[in-house]
């Protein structure tokens, strides 16, 4: 193990002063891969060769099992090899010589990251000799924090580019869909590859991300977003993606809608400009979760002769799996989300737009239209339509078992279910009473007014006082 240099003094993770793992810098390399922290192999100085074989190697980032996966499976997807990239970690030692780190939301973790970055990070020169214009691949939440200052929404940004900002830099508000220039440092967000062992379904988005890295490097992704048209089209397009924004508290109140065509023309129409339009019979309208948009579409055009396609329903047919919801932020497991933000990261030609809901709602709305079109057809590999065409059985399931559910769901949403509110109140009162008895039971058991809803109180009692441990199941 290497001793920690003097720059480590004062860091909350200083520990016994041993186990420093320096960055591996390749001058003139266009890419910096930023990982979380060293593992046992990196700390001890041994390189994993596969098949349980190792060789001695000076301590360096990503030389263990994760590094092996990076070298053999993921760098090639981007047309790169190890000599093309610099490698760094957010934390350059193993906390207490173990793999567990506190969550990035904890202040001590943020302090350690900031200390480590200030003390040890020196940006390399890029291919042109400049230290600007590099592509940083941030693998995981810790690296994401180190180079963007963001503690939240890692999953939301995965697969997209963010401008570089260290945690101590002044915050900047992202008010538009960001298309970086050649001299901008680009932070590309992806999963830490070790996460794939924990969550195998993350492999698909991870692979797409590394494919996309090649496009970022050759300047073909993301595409610049042209100005939108802020008035309704004269005639409804015969093939278009459609998306609506409506009031959360009253879904029938349309705020605006957007339309996007295959030639990337985008209309964003505000509520006051909405008027009835003529539609050519047989026209195709693509939506993401059509049951939410169809009632508003019916207010704009006659939907009787319109062919409807749905990216959420189609994606569920093609890529069903454990679904990661926005509410879970990925913690519940699963990476096969059907949300448009996720699909945009998989198929879209434009950078993220879903963070603009409040700061730039018109760009957000237009992004939804354009993103939906990319996801359906104009995006990577022909989008979902391309995938359905290449897999006739999935196409059959989509057209005969999934898409026909849309009108059934629409009708269900419109009809609703009558509620006996008096009976609900009685049930609720009984339940609240029951919950109170659980709380009293807990307080009687512990002998102090424990807060049964407090994770800190619970953890103290269950793990410190009672010493409970999860055992392995008998096999």
């Amino acid at each position, binding site marked *: 193990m290497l001793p920690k240099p003097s720059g480590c003094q004062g860091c909350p993770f200083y*520990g016994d002063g041993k186990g420093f793992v320096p960055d591996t810098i390749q001058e003139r390399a266009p890419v910096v891969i930023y990982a979380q922290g060293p593992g046992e192999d990196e700390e001890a100085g041994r390189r994993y060769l596969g098949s349980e074989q190792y060789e001695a190697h000076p301590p360096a980032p990503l030389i263990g099992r994760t590094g092996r996966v990076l070298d053999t499976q993921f760098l090639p997807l981007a047309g790169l090899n190890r000599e093309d990239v610099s490698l760094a970690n957010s934390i350059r030692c193993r*906390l207490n010589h173990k793999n567990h*780190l*506190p969550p990035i939301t904890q202040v001590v973790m943020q302090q350690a990251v900031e200390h480590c970055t200030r003390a040890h990070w020196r940006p390399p020169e890029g291919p042109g000799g400049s230290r600007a214009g590099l592509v940083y691949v941030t693998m995981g939440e810790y690296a994401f924090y180190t180079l963007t200052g963001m503690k939240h929404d890692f999953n939301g940004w995965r697969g997209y580019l963010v401008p570089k900002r260290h945690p101590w830099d002044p915050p900047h508000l992202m008010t538009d869909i960001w298309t970086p220039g050649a001299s901008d440092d680009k932070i590309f967000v992806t999963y830490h590859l070790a996460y794939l062992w924990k969550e*195998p*379904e993350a492999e698909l988005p991870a692979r797409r991300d590394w494919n996309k890295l090649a496009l970022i490097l050759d300047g073909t992704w993301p595409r610049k977003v042209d100005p939108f048209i802020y008035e309704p089209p004269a005639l409804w397009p015969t093939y278009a993606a459609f998306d609506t924004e409506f009031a959360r508290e009253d879904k029938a109140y349309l705020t605006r809608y957007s339309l996007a065509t295959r030639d990337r023309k985008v209309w964003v129409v505000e509520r006051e400009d909405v008027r009835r339009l003529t539609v050519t019979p047989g026209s195709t309208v693509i939506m993401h979760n059509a049951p939410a948009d169809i009632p508003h579409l019916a207010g704009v055009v006659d939907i009787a002769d319109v062919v409807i396609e749905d990216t*959420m*329903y189609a994606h*569920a047919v093609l890529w*069903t*799996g454990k*679904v990661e919801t926005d509410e879970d932020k990925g913690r519940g497991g*699963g990476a096969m989300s*059907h949300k448009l933000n996720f699909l945009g990261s998989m198929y879209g030609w434009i950078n993220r737009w879903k963070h603009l809901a409040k700061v730039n709602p018109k760009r957000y709305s237009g992004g939804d239209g354009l993103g939906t079109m990319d996801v359906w057809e104009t995006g990577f590999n022909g989008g979902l339509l391309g995938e359905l065409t290449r897999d006739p*059985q*999935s196409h*059959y*399931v989509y057209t*005969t*078992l*999934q898409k*026909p*559910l849309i*009108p*059934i*769901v629409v*009708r*269900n949403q419109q*009809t*609703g*279910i*009558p*509620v*006996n*509110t008096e009976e*609900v*109140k009685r*049930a*609720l009162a*009984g*339940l609240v009473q*029951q*919950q109170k008895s*659980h*709380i009293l039971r*807990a307080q009687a058991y*512990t002998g102090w007014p424990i807060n*049964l809803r407090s994770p800190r109180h*619970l*953890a103290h*009692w*269950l*793990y410190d006082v*009672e010493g*409970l441990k*999860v*055992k392995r*199941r*008998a*096999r």
Partner: protein
Amino acid sequence: MPVRVSPRSTNQDRLTALRDQGEDSDLLLARLALLESEGLRKDLAKMGKKPICYPEILPTQASLRWSTKNPNIPGFDRVFWRDHSTIIYPHPGTWWLSWDWKAIEGRLFTAYSGDEEDLQLYKLGPDIHTFTCAKYLFEWAPEAHPGCQIDDLHLPEDWQGPEDERRVRAKNFRYGPFQYGTGARAILGMPGIEKLGLDRETLVKRAQRFIDARPRGVAWKEQTWAACVRDKEARTFMGARRKLFGDADTMKKDGLNHKIQGSVSNLMAWCLIQIVKEIPAASLVLNKHDGAIVACLLHDEGASERSSVCDRVQDHVRQIVEREWEIGPGITMAFPATWGRRMA
């Protein structure tokens, strides 16, 4: 000062794992009870505010299962429905017809694999889980055969019917080691199995006897697992795919689950589409994985006529829901359901 990091999660999964391994701390149980009622409390609080609720339903979960939220009415537990069955009701002028498929996942497994004893049990009876309990798990009637009478199973005097704890364990006994598990020893990891009062050796021996009596099921499972690992995908008999990721064990588990659960989802979708196609006035009210409620129109008939109209609609829907499908090669299976009606 060293920073301590330790796994001290208090989330529901961790606490459930602790409970399932036999920890009976009152605090643990009280917290779990509180957690389990939190979702219901939030849903009820929302439902109490408006005379009509609009649950959000989506057929996009894993293996095309449905989700319902705001409120998650199908997630309300059985005890709640026993005490508060009238919190929702049909719109005036409509009535509700509901069905719950009986043991549909077990039937699908048998239909894919074709073990004779299970095929016969589904056709001739008696109840498959009671049979499993009597013939294999407790060996009250080791020679019992499909088509036998319930008395032939020598059930104990304190047998409490379908809700009997031992029958529930027999269901786990079938699904755990055989249908979804990796072998007889899987019985030992099943929650609550220690409550049966059987020692480990006996449990494993009986699970093995049960498995040995189902050679086709074992072979089909092996073939399916091998195909999942080889092709990295699984498909239902209707063609719905699930791409598989991770190590071989994960692919086997996810692939087999998809073949069964994805088939239930496909059947549900097919039935709903067909019902609405053949009875345009019918509409979906709620559904869960293996059952649904549809609303049907009432006409101006008198009470006596109304009953026969409902009978006719129910018969029509039953023909759709319980129709026979060819699933495995040359193996057909129908999926009978328990039916219910609710008038406005």
